[in-house]
Every structure is written in structure tokens, then in C-alpha cells.
């Protein structure tokens, strides 16, 4: 049905608050099939001038840290303050069935009922690169649709959070105390990209542990090189279950924007992300193009076979293939 609508009409409906069309437009943008690419591109071109008002917040943490509960509490707080909130929840896909349960939507039952909330589960579908491309574009769409805050939630596994940090203005890391791994984040490089670290489950019977964890973190944060010279990463505690400390989190977010926005820092963060992303995409595409050229493909597999059978050293194989590509490129350019 949406395929028979023009991009103009789709965008007009989205701006009009038509949630069904918004959801379907998101599906078109997510699609990996070439038949949807044209319409997706048109929709994105049309919304780009309208993008920029929404705050983009990333939230990550290990499974069980209480991200969904926190998002529910924080989201409700914002809605009660009169804001419109969108959540993109990236769910890991099963490597066995390829399916994704998209269960986050079922975990945020209070938000789910709110008219001013929009929750979109996105399967990670195995490779992260594709997810971050789609997520970036979905964020644009939600921003244009008039949501004041767009959250991007991911499960903290490996590299993904660093990539997600490059999709948002402000990045929250959610942790729990008492697991003895308060500083594990340093190893994975997450703490370097976090703008705030929230220690959740500061419930009545767990208060002591969370306060200790907060102090450990605060000390560690002073040692790390700050992400921006204007902003010192903060450590906070909250209990999403008991709905305490939620206001503090949002105060810190507001403080971040108040500090960064006046000197154009938020705009430059976003610009930097867009440019970095564009560059990455070009590189990726160019490499794919080169590898998919028939003669290079053949040369590569020949070299590969030679290296495998020890007829050629890897060093010389690199030399041969690179030489060929360089000559071919020069030749094609000259021609």
C-alpha cells in the first residue's frame, strides 16, 4: 500500500502525525531490497531539511542491567513533562533461526500505551554495519516526525556500542553494582565513549553497593582522557524499578546540551558523524566495487590459491594484486 504512495504524500502523512505511515516508511527504509531503494532515498531527501530538532540519546549496557526498565521510567518522565519520545530498540537476532524476538516492545508496557511514545524494535540481523546505516536513517525520520527525544537502545556486546555512540549526541552506559566488574567497560573502550555512566538498581536493599560503585567509577573517570574538553563524563545512580534518580539523569542530559549547544558543539558532532559515515560508506562501496570486478576477482583467487599452497609468499601476493589494481585504476582514469 505504501509502495503506491508518492514520497511527497508519505512525508506529508508523517508530518501530519500518521503513525501507521511512519512505521511503514521505516520498513521501506530498512529494506535491503533494491526495489525499495528509490522510494527510501526520496523520503530521506524530503525529510532531511526538517531534521535537527530532536535530541539523540544512546543507551547501552549488558543484558540484565535494566535498560528497558530505565527507558520506560525515563520515557514516562519525559512524556509527563510534555515531550514526545521515540525509541529504537536494537535487538540481537538469533544466529540459529535468523529471527529476532523484538521483545523490548513487550517490556515497556507503560510507554507502549502512551500516544506520545513510539517504540521501534530493529533486528541487528547479524552484521552491525547494516544496522547502524538503517538506525541512522530511522533517527532522521523520527526527528522529522516531531519527536523531541530519540533513544537508541542496544545490548552491550563488543564493538556495537562504539558504533552506536557515533549515531547519537549523548551516550549513556547503564551498569549494575555488585557484579565486581565496575571497570570492565574500560577494557572494551565503552567508558571512553560514554557521556554518562548510570548505575541502575540502586534499590533499597542495594544502595550501599551502588554508592561504592559510583565512587570507584568517578575516580576512574578522572584518569581517562575526556571525550570532549567541554564535558566531563558523569557517574549517576538510579533505581528504574522504584522510579528514583530518573529526574537527575535528564538534568544531566539537559546540562550537556546547555554546555555544548551554545558554542555549536552539538551541530559539529552531528556534522562529524555524517561526514565520517559518508566516508566509511564510500570506502566500503569502492572496495566492494573493486573486488567485484571480474579480472580482479580472478587475480585475487589465483593469488589466494598460490598463498594457500605455499607457492607464493603473502608479501609478494599483496604486491602483485595491489600493483595490478593500481595500474588498472591509472589506466581507467587515463582512458
Amino acid at each position, binding site marked *: 500500500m505504501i509502495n503506491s504512495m508518492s514520497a511527497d504524500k508519505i512525508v506529508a502523512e508523517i508530518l501530519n502525525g500518521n503513525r501507521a505511515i511512519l512505521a*511503514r516508511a521505516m520498513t521501506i527504509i530498512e529494506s535491503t531490497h533494491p526495489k525499495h531503494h528509490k522510494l527510501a532515498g526520496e523520503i530521506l531527501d524530503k525529510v532531511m531539511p526538517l531534521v535537527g530538532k530532536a535530541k539523540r540519546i544512546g543507551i547501552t549496557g549488558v543484558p540484565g542491567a535494566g535498560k528497558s526498565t530505565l527507558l520506560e521510567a525515563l520515557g514516562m518522565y519525559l512524556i509527563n513533562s510534555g515531550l514526545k519520545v521515540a525509541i529504537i530498540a536494537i535487538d540481537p537476532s538469533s544466529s540459529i533461526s535468523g529471527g529476532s*524476538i523484538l521483545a523490548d516492545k513487550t517490556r515497556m508496557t507503560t510507554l507502549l500505551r502512551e500516544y506520545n511514545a513510539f517504540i521501534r524494535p530493529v533486528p541487528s540481523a547479524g552484521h552491525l554495519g547494516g544496522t547502524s546505516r538503517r538506525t541512522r536513517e530511522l533517527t532522521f525520520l523520527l526527528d522529522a516526525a516531531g519527536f523531541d527525544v530519540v533513544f537508541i537502545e542496544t545490548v552491550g556486546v563488543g564493538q556495537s556500542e562504539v558504533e552506536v555512540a557515533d549515531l547519537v549526541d549523548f551516550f549513556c552506559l547503564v551498569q549494575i553494582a555488585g557484579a565486581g566488574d565496575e571497570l570492565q567497560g574500560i577494557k572494551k573502550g565503552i567508558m571512553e565513549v560514554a557521556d554518562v555512566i548510570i548505575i541502575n538498581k540502586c534499590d533499597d536493599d542495594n544502595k550501599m553497593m551502588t554508592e561504592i560503585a559510583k565512587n570507584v567509577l568517578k575516580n576512574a573517570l578522572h584518569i581517562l582522557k575526556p571525550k570532549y574538553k567541554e564535558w566531563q563524563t558523569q557517574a549517576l545512580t538510579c533505581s528504574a524499578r522504584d522510579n528514583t534518580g530518573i529526574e537527575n539523569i535528564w538534568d544531566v542530559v539537559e546540562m550537556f546540551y546547555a554546555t555544548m549547544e551554545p558554542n555549536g558543539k552539538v551541530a559539529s558532532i552531528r556534522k562529524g558523524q555524517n561526514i565520517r559515515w559518508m566516508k566509511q560508506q564510500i570506502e566500503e562501496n569502492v572496495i566492494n566495487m573493486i573486488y567485484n570486478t571480474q579480472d580482479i576477482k580472478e587475480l585475487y583467487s589465483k593469488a589466494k590459491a598460490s598463498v594457500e599452497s605455499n607457492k607464493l609468499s603473502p608479501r609478494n601476493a599483496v604486491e602483485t594484486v595491489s600493483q595490478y589494481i593500481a595500474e588498472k585504476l591509472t589506466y581507467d582514469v587515463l582512458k
Partner: protein
Amino acid sequence: MDGKLDQWKKLANSEVKRMGKTVDDLVSKTLEGIDIKSLYTAEDTKNLETIDSLPGISPFVRGPKATMYTARPWTIRQYAGFSTAKESNAFYRKNLAAGQKGLSVAFDLATHRGYDSDNPRVEGDVGKAGVAVDSVEDMKVLFDQIPLDQMSVSMTMNGAVIPVLAFYIVAAEEQGVAQQLLTGTIQNDILKEYLCRNTYIYPPKPSMRIISDIIEYCSNNMPRYNTISISGYHMGEAGANCVQQVAFTIADGIEYIKAAINAGLNIDDFAPRLSFFFGIGMNLFMNVAMLRAARYLWSDAVEQLGGNEQSKALRTHCQTSGWSLTEQDPYNNIIRTTIEALSATLGGTQSLHTNAFDEALGLPTEFSARIARNTQIILQEESEICNTVDPLAGSYYVEALTDTIVKEARKIIEQIDKAGGMAKAIELGIPKRMIEEAAAETQSLIDQGKRVIVGVNKYTLQKEEAVNVLEIDNQAVLEEQIASLHKLKLTRNSVKVEETLAKIRVVAKEGGNLLAAAIDAARVRATLGEISEAMEDVFGRYLVPGHCVTGVISREYHNSEKGASEFDEVKQLVDDYANNEGTRRNCQAGRRK
């Protein structure tokens, strides 16, 4: 005997040889995971802990009463209720005139969750799945011309149990019936609500306190009233197998006894007033054995908690399984219900509800309700099964099965005990997960055709015949309820109402008996929504956290090669779809209006 058994085995093997099988291949596995042999003999009943007892004497395997149906058959108790109190009352009186012996009230969903009919949240539910009751006035109409000192009334109410029981007591009072004379049962089993039935209101802790308050009030004022009907039925409907149903129900019962003891009550003052409620499915002998095993396990558990002989006797209501009914070719449901009713009565139930054949389609009509009722009357008055107590006792198969269920269920009960009791286990999601896994397993067996359901996955009809169902004009009920609420609020003394509601808040917060406080509020015409809300102000409203069960269907399909290849086919279809559409999402989803 051994020689004879060998001879039988030889003979049996030669009979199935042509099918390329041996007698060992004839062993079948039940949903409970129990292996059923093709022959049981005296060997199988040697050294069983559950054998050789007498009815009316602990451990009560053969029944809680010495004479059972030979003196008085089970009570035919049909669960019903719909629309307004007036309509339901007319329906009850007609049924009582036609031979029904007890009443069982079904309330609508709004009442269950503690909302008045005029609450905008419940607009679509008023009067739908049961009768709408907003105040003591509705309750009076519901029992108009039904003498509550003679009629035993069962009420299925768990969440809004305080206002409903208060309304019942005040309605009786205004009928001129004193509290001491009330007989009947209130379900009041909150634990299984968190597990599968979902009409809880408050968090587990205050809910358990409400139950203690009710037990306390009734032991002092309503000695003949059954304060909890500990229910496995809804677990069965959610997919629990017989072993799970028994285990979780007994574990729930243990939890209630412990709560009441902790509240300072003496076990023998209330345990005899606890009754049970089981769901009876299609496996005839398994369900008979389940009831026998339940009585044994309860007797054992209550003894360990220090109860006397009377406290140890398990009395139960049963209902035929609604889950086993089919929308397709629905007249088959009459036969299913008959088999299940036979199972419940051979198992020794104290009362029984038989489902109407059209209950997979809607509420029973007068016709289908008559057939359902007559199923029981024919069993009682024509089949001659009531002439002797526990007729299946001594059956090698049934006795062995009884013993196996006891042993398997005990393992689960011990597991729950280790987790810290049923309340804790529910909080941890242990039983819910087990039931959901069992449900998914059964469904995948049906999908694969390994479990036959006539008219659904075998012997299906080319063309289904249209069946008349009872339609409730929800709009008319809603308007009537709202109008009478409006009238009630105009005519009552609102100062007194506010006073009694404030008292409920204080009692909720600081202690005292909530039922006693609610009875005062009911007398001055506080509504169900108001009383529930007063408690909600203190206790809060609860939501059970959800979990996903995964991998069960896949595991079941991979039990056979045929299943595995079917599964792979489906996976391939999904992948093809994703390749063609660029997404796994259903692009058409949300199109329905």
C-alpha cells in the same frame, strides 16, 4: 507369574512382528513425560506408597469421605454469569429448577480487575465474560429469591476479592441471612493469578496479606465458608500437564497455610476450609490418577505442617477442560466433555462443572447449557457409576500411575521448596516458564499431527455448519450499569462513604482486617471500584514482568527427520521472503482495521 509374563511377551511380540515392531516399541510417552507400557500387572503395584488405603481416612487416596457418591453424588455446579445481575439471576433460577444443585458465579473482567462499569478503561468488557457487579445493589439482584442460607454459592473472584466478598455478606445480611449461615466458596487464589490467570490487582505481598485477612475473618465469623479454592484449573488451561498441575497447586496450598500460620492462626481452624479446583483433560486414566495423587500429596503436606485428620482431607471441585474444546465441528465437544466428566467423577471430585459444547465459540445458549448439565445428570442417574466408592482402585494401571504422579510431582514441589516457596518461585518465573514450555511442546505436537484432535488436524469437515451462539449486547449492559451507578451515587450518604473508604486506607497501611473494613463500606454503598482504589492507593497496582520462552518448537520438530525437514522448509520460506522484500517484517502488518 514370571513364566506367564514371558509367555505373554512372546505372544505380544509375534502379534506386532508383521509391523516390524517389538512389544517395547509399544511404550508410549504422555505429555507428562511418563512412559506407559502396553500391559500392567500385579508386579507394577508391588511396594507402592499410595496403595491400600480406605476412603475417608488419611492419606485419602480413595476420597475425602467414607461413603463418597454412594450416599450423595457430587454437586452439579455450573459456572455461569453474563450481562447484568438481573439477567444472570433469571438464568440461575431456571437452572436450579432444572436440577442444578449449586451456583457458581462468573464475574466480568472489569469486576475482576477492580473497576466499576463506568471506568473508561473497561468499556468493551462490561457484562461480557461474566456478570457486572459494581455495588451491593447488584449483588442483591444477583441472588434475588435465592435463599443464601440454603444455597452453596461459589464465586470465582481473586483480584477484587475484598469488595466482592463484602458485597456478598451484606447482600445476605439484607436478605435476613446471618454470616454464620453462609456456605460456599470464594476462589481467592491469588498465586495462580500471577502465574496464568492474570486478574490480580496488587503486588504479591499485600495480596497475600488480603488472603490472611479473609481467612482470619471467616474462621471467626463464617465457619462453614470455604475461604480459598486452590486452583490448578487455570494452569491446565495455560498448558500445564497433570504432574505440573498437581505439583503447583499443592505448592500454592502449602504457601497459603504457611501465610495463615505466620499471621497467627491455628492450622486446624482454617485448613479444613481450604478447597481445591482441578481441570480435567482428555487423558482419562491420567486425570483419574491426578486427583488420587493430589489427595495423597495434600494429606502428606498438611501432616508435615502439623494439621489434624480433618485438615488433611482434600476436597475439590473439577471442571472439564475448556482448552480441549474445538471451534471446528463443535458437536464433538459433547463427547469430549463426557469423557472428561467421567474422568473427574471416577477420580472422586466433590463437585463438577461440565463445559457446554459451544464454549469455544461464545457463551453457552440455553440449549447447550442443558446438554452440559444433562451430561452430569445422566452419569449420576443412568450410568450407575455412583454405586461404589473409587471403582478404579486396585487397577494395576491406575494405581501405578497414581504412584508415579505422586513421585514426579513431589520432585517439582521440592524444587519449589528449595527456591523458597511458591510465592518466591513465581517471582523468579520458575513455574510460568515450565508451563509455557509444556504448552509450546503440546502445540507443536498438534501442529505436526502427532497429537490428534478430531476435526482440527484429522477428519476435518469440508464445510463447517454454523452454530448459534449467545450474543451479549454489551452496549445495553454498559448503559444500564452506568445508569444504576449514577443513581446509587445520588442517593447514598457520601460523607459516610468517604469515611469508610478513608478507614480502608488506614487499615491497609497500618493493619487491621480489610474485609471487616470493606463490609462497613459496602453497607453504606461504596462501589467495587472505590473500595479497590482505596486499597490501590496504599498497595499500588502490579504488573507481572513478561518473559519469552524460546527453542521449544524447534526442539520438538527436530525429534524426527520429517519434522526437521518441515522446520527447515519454513525457515527457507522466511529467508525467501526476506530476500524478496528486503526485510523479515510483514510489510502488510497493521493493515487490518
